């Protein structure tokens, strides 16, 4: 399940909704991304997330489908926020549910790696020196490449 929204989300509620109807689930991995107050040594007062409505949902659905093809998952959820956020705010939630923990851990990390390089979101950081578009990290591309089947 995927959701692209400006509103915040509640971790406990989202995990409960995913698991309460399925007592075969034994392992849940959740990743939460938060707005950091410092980026590259500069203090951030706020961050605005721009995205490409339509393509965002399409990409998130595609990577979620691929995770379910690669791992035996009972449920999954991707929530990504857009709009203006403050340091400490939640940006993204990825939850994967499986019978055992290995599938839950691996698929959650896979989803985050692909989301970071495929989902069309862009971060604009407001700093004392003005707005600054965040640069993509090489490490994110490398993290994605390790999942490519050879």
């Amino acid at each position, binding site marked *: 399940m995927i959701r692209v929204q400006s509103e915040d989300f509640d971790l406990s509620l989202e995990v409960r909704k995913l698991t309460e109807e399925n007592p075969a689930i034994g392992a849940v991995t959740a990743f939460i*991304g938060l707005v950091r107050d410092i980026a590259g040594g500069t203090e951030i007062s706020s961050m605005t997330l721009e995205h490409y409505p339509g393509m965002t949902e399409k990409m998130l659905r595609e990577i979620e489908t691929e995770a379910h093809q690669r791992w035996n998952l009972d449920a999954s959820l991707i929530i990504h926020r857009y709009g203006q956020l403050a340091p400490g705010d939640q940006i993204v939630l990825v939850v994967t549910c499986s019978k055992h923990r290995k599938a839950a851990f691996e698929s959650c990390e896979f989803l985050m790696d692909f989301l970071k390089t495929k989902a069309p979101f862009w971060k604009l950081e407001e700093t004392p020196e003005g707005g600054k578009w965040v*640069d993509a990290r090489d490490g994110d591309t490398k993290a994605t490449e390790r999942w490519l089947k050879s």
Partner: protein
Amino acid sequence: MKILYFAWLRTEIGKSSEDISLPAGIQTVNDLLNWLPERGNNYAQALQKRDLLRIAINQDYADLDQKIHDSDEVAIFPPVTGG
């Protein structure tokens, strides 16, 4: 053709989208990226970093040699930084 611009490409070009009638001979993504700078200094400036840019045709990532059509929605944007 509808073209969308995002992030710093949007702010440098100064618009988030536009409808363009493609001139004859513009057939691929590469043709489009070669032609766009002719539209003005803001385009030329923004597209200096074209090696960095990502292209989507109808909301799917596309290569430089991919064909484009008047009915397509083409998006041009910097590497994504969500998550």
